[in-house]
């Protein structure tokens, strides 16, 4: 801070540094290192299963799991599709619902006082405990699972977005007031942009939770004897001691989780990269 801040003349712009050097090496490393770890784990796993002659219903080797994945693809892909559909529908509904409710909450103190406690109650009650009830009240299993996933996903998006809409720089609010901004203008031009980082943090959490909730709800539903999502297939494989298929199902589930994480991170990055500290690679 001791050095004077130079008030750069207009011509300085051209002198600004070009894009940071060597982003490619960085990006390549980011892919190669985890990949190398994966290969290593698979090789050790395979070696262990062969060397100690572990039987497949205790721990199947990685290649047997891969084989099962291909062989049972018909059943598994159908189940995967069901789980994905439920997860993304829940996420989408929670996004729309959570954001709209958050906007409503910050518009009026009364609405917030009336609704927010119940949103919290809904959140803190463990979903596994409500699932049996929901399964009774909602006759269609898929709809019941969807409802469970929605409830779980909804809250982080609601609370994060509400927090964001409220954390607007006070001086900026004054500025808007000074220039006679309407409520609508303040919401659109100030509160919503300011809430974006919070919203995306909520989206990332919600995306992960949607999948978890879909699986948990399906476990609950599966024990009731209906369902065809991945979670149900995993349970079923366990009952039949078809451990290779259980592993294949698990792999599909984590792959789905990774893709969701990647998608929400990408959305966040694309929206915030120009201005928010969290998305910046600082050149110093």
């Amino acid at each position, binding site marked *: 801070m001791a*050095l004077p*801040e*130079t*008030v750069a003349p207009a011509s*300085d712009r051209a002198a600004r540094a070009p894009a940071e050097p060597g982003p490619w090496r960085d990006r390549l490393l980011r892919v190669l290192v985890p990949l190398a770890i994966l290969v290593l784990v698979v090789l050790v796993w395979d070696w262990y299963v062969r060397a100690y002659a572990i039987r497949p219903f205790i721990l199947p080797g990685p290649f047997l799991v891969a084989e099962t994945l291909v062989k049972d693809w018909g059943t598994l892909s159908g189940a995967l599709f069901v789980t994905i559909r439920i997860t993304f529908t829940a996420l989408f509904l929670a996004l729309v619902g959570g954001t709209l409710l958050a906007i409503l909450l910050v518009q009026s103190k009364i609405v917030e006082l009336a609704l927010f406690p119940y949103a919290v109650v809904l959140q803190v009650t463990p979903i596994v405990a409500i699932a049996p009830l929901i399964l009774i009240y909602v006759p269609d299993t898929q709809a019941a699972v969807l409802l469970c996933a929605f409830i779980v996903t909804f809250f982080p998006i609601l609370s994060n977005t509400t927090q964001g809409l409220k954390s607007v*720089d006070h001086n900026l609010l004054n500025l808007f007031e000074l220039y006679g901004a309407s409520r609508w203008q303040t919401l659109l*031009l100030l509160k919503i*942009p300011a809430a974006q980082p919070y919203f995306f943090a909520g989206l990332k959490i919600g995306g992960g939770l949607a999948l978890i909730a879909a699986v948990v709800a399906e476990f609950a539903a599966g024990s009731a004897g209906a369902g065809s999502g991945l979670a149900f297939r995993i349970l079923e494989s366990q009952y039949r001691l078809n451990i290779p298929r259980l592993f294949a199902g698990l792999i599909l589930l984590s792959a789905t989780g990774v893709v969701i994480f990647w998608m929400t991170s990408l959305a966040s990055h694309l929206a915030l990269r120009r*201005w928010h500290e969290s998305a910046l690679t600082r050149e110093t």
Partner: protein
Amino acid sequence: MSSTASADPSRRPVVRLEGVTKSFANGTLALDRLTLEVRPGEFLSLLGPSGCGKSTALRIIAGLGQPTAGRVDWPATPHDAGGAPERSIGFVFQEPTLMPWATVFNNVWLPLRLKGRSKASVRDAVMEALERVGLTAFADAYPRELSGGMKMRVSLARALVTRPKLLLMDEPFAALDEITRFKLNNDILQLQAELGWTVVFVTHSVFESVYLSSRIVVMAARPGRVFEEIEVPVPRPRDEAFRTSPDYVALCRQASDALTRAMQAAGREVA
């Protein structure tokens, strides 16, 4: 003085605070019967120790928060049907207060945008404002790409894009280093000469207030009130030569003494 002032509309004060009192819910009496006239074309500095109500006074002039008692009049401003004055104010905060998600252009566009003006229709006005602060090349940059002084210039451009008659500045350069500060002081003086602004400038720097002002109002704290007025009858434009002149030194001493007495006065009342 006041009778001739009201006879000639162009000489009427821009804004007049009469017995303005402001107390906050926590019991703080921020302003106690503050009476103050802002004359057209003058550069008025509010100088005072921290907590004496400078910001509060400025915010009340800007219409951000109502006085608890007293009145704020706009004798030279037309009033709308509802009786509210159609003020034309620019406000520069202590921090640049830019929207980090918007480019420099969009930040400067904001006051006009809130009045319903489209981007295309104000392009020239925005670019002209940016040119006045020397930032045309940065129109598409984001605030994070700018230095502290440059951000303050954007803030200034945003305040002047609406062509306000009255510019209110709340310690705008307090966070900047001295070199940038001197540079921006000169810019402000030049802009005031070109655009004919009336300026109310809050500062706690004696040197800054003497350099910039045509009149200095020294305030005392607890409760906030006008303590003393100092005229600075030095013609403009002023430049670096003024900073080293004997006149400047003498005026600084006068202002500094007044400030010291204001602080002692506040201390006595507390004791």
